[in-house]
């Protein structure tokens, strides 16, 4: 087998596994009304997948459906439908896309019909809009909703009383709600077993993400990482399939590292790693590949991103602890990226710039998301001030194609990389004259 064939075979392995896992999951979801497997809708940040699964329930993540609708070119019509029904143009487009999708028959990303939820598990983690989203869905589906209040890390840490508060809610509210819809009793041993599986996948994911510390980085830790975090952020944490996927992915990345290869961008492998960049903020989904290619065309590889931490900040050491199943779920929820305060987010960016030896950072500020976006201009200035590295600011949206101006973004990126280049040459000159 040639090098190339081997690379393709390896690449295909993890992608094929992921594709199959997802297809199978959506098939199960489609059959759920007949098989009577209960369906729980919940959010990516603060998802309690292991717990949900330990009751034999199937999770559905509406944000993932919305982003997939964006990628499949469906979001425009869904959003328009929701706006026609009185939803404001000013609010998060994920919500409108999801509501529009439900109105259009609830056909999920793989083309199969999504079942109605038996329970809405409103894990109120890091985003105000979540609360309204599920209040809205509750009206749509007329089903029970259980609320888990996850306190924000306003002081930059998880306060012990806040942890206790979360544990109490999981015990007294969430577990009884899951028992009720599933007819199964809470089984702590089964949960622990799932948490053990989570740890394995988490270890491998962190290894993959941190492989970007190498030069050249074998992965793109923003655009590429979106695929890598998919299983662990959605339905597959705490499952054998999840563990297998991350093992395969790790093998594949190890192969690229050994061969000294960079990431594969939409138009093929990147020839050169010209710039190492850290990115803050979610990507745009309606023009995802075009957006990624703009970076690739400049020779820019994203070596670390905050978006890939919205479903957990594992690279800062957190792992689920099977010995303390409920407490660890509280820690997990409170530790998700958007539940960190602004100074914490700034620290994280500075840390990434240092650890990944990046040339600069970019903020993609999305119109939809106050949770991410409010305060990003200050983050830009603070990170620049603290690291001396150049920051860039671009604006788009998640799934509303009206807010993606390709020409504008391309211009901004080009100017930004020119600035990075200029800084580089001036520091090189300084180095020579010193």
């Amino acid at each position, binding site marked *: 087998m040639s090098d190339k064939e081997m690379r393709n075979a390896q690449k295909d392995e993890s992608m094929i596994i992921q594709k199959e896992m997802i297809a199978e999951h959506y098939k199960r979801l489609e059959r759920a009304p007949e098989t009577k497997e209960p369906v729980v809708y919940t959010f990516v940040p603060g998802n309690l997948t292991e717990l949900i699964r330990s009751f034999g329930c199937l999770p559905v993540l509406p944000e993932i459906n919305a982003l997939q609708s964006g990628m499949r070119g469906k979001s425009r019509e869904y959003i328009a439908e929701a706006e026609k029904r009185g939803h404001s143009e000013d609010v998060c487009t994920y919500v409108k896309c999801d509501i529009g999708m439900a109105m259009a028959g609830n056909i999920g990303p793989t083309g199969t019909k999504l079942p109605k939820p038996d329970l809405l598990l409103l894990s109120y983690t890091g985003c105000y809009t979540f609360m309204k989203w599920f209040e809205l869905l509750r009206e749509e589906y007329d089903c029970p909703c259980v609320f888990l209040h996850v306190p924000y890390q306003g002081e930059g840490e998880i306060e012990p009383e806040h942890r206790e508060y979360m544990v109490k809610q999981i015990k007294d509210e969430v577990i009884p709600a899951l028992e009720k819809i599933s007819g199964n009793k809470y089984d702590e041993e089964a949960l622990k077993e799932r948490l053990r599986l989570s740890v394995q996948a988490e270890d491998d994911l962190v290894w993959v993400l941190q492989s970007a510390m190498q030069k050249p980085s074998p992965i793109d830790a923003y655009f590429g990482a979106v695929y890598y975090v998919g299983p662990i952020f959605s339905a597959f944490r705490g499952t054998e399939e999840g563990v297998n996927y991350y093992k395969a992915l790790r093998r594949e990345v190890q192969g690229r590292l050994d061969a000294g290869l960079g990431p594969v961008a939409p138009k093929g492998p990147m020839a050169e790693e010209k710039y190492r960049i850290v990115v803050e903020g979610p990507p745009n989904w309606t023009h995802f590949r075009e957006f990624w290619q703009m970076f690739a065309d400049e020779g820019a590889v994203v070596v670390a991103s905050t978006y890939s931490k919205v479903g957990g900040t594992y690279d800062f050491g957190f792992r689920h602890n099977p010995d303390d199943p409920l407490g660890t779920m509280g820690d997990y929820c409170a530790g998700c990226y958007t539940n960190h305060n602004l100074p914490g987010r700034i620290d994280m960016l500075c840390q990434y710039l240092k650890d990944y030896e990046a040339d600069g950072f970019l903020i993609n500020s999305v119109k939809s998301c106050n*949770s991410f976006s409010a305060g990003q201009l200050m983050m830009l200035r603070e990170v620049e001030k603290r690291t001396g590295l150049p920051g860039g600011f671009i604006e788009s949206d998640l799934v509303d194609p009206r807010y993606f101006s390709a020409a504008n973004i391309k211009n901004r990126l080009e100017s930004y990389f020119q600035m990075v280049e200029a800084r580089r040459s001036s520091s090189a000159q300084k180095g020579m004259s010193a």
Partner: protein
Amino acid sequence: MTPSPRAQIVDWATEIYEDLEFTVVREWLDAQPGRKAAGFLPVYAPKEVIHAAGMLPVGIHGNGAIEIIRGDAYYQSYICHLPRSVVELAESNRLDFLSAALFPSTCDVIRNLSGMWQIMFPDMYVRYMHLPQVADPVLGAQFWQRELNVIREGLGQVAGTTVGDDQLRASIGIYNEVREVIGQLYALRSKQPWKVPTEELYLLMRAGEVVAPEVFMDQARAYLAAAENSDERIKDRTRVIIVGSFCEQPPLGLIKTIERAGCYIVDDDFLAGNRFMTKAVPTAGDPAANLATTFTSSAVKTSVLYEPDPKGKKSLMQERAAAARADGIIFCAASFCDPALLDRPMLREGAEAAGIPCIAFKFAENSGQFQQFREQAGTFSDSIKLWGDAS
């Protein structure tokens, strides 16, 4: 001619409202050495705790009149206006009298502003306040009681004192009186809105956000007495509720416009924090526990708290319209305001299903043109009158 006592009160409140320098706060601070002030952002903050620490609670509600020079550098165009005027006030040193700032869990903009504040004012006591959101009132109260005690301790340290139970009880007593007089004013306006123009009521409430509660109560009681005795005659106007302006405040011109377009505002959620708890807080027993249980048992239904009742959103407008005997609802939200705008479809659907006429518009605190609002509110009012006549 000397203005009437009522006009004097309105002038007093207007002066405070228009003063971008917070002179009344500065005068209060200067009146006695060692005095301190704690700011709070909308919507709800436990003023009792601030007061019990001997500090002046100061509502930071932004300001549409201030010229934004630095604030825009902090916020993208798709974020509401309030935080930019707040940052402008802060960056221009107009809030330099604050020793502490509390940021309630109203929305992600205010949440993130708490972190910005920590960076801008590293020496200030800054606390993000998690209002209890859970359906279980016992658990919610336990949680909130602990939060209140953390704030109590933190503010005590800022003030250089320990906030004892007796002090907190005394402050609760004072704010029970404040709530009572505000309740009376709102009730009078609802009953006889021609006697209490919302423009005046609003100015008075706004002054109440920055002056000491004792000062506010004197003025509010005097205003109430004067309004009760007013011989103003009822006019043919439509009774409306304004919904959605609980955080960023509409410009005064917008409130005036709605009234002059033929509406009596008989209920609203302007400065909703001062009416957040609908019951008096017991003064005997553990004061923090009392504040917490009163919150979880009587907090007003609003966009900033989770609604555990699945029918709650749908029925809320009907309940409010019935309580205020309103003919219609004007949804009046700040542009880009997530809480108000995400709630609106649910609230409006419920209102319309109950046959309550509604219109909706958006404003920014610095909106200066009111023509479109005048036309919309005027047409709305006329159509309700016609409709009412026809039925």
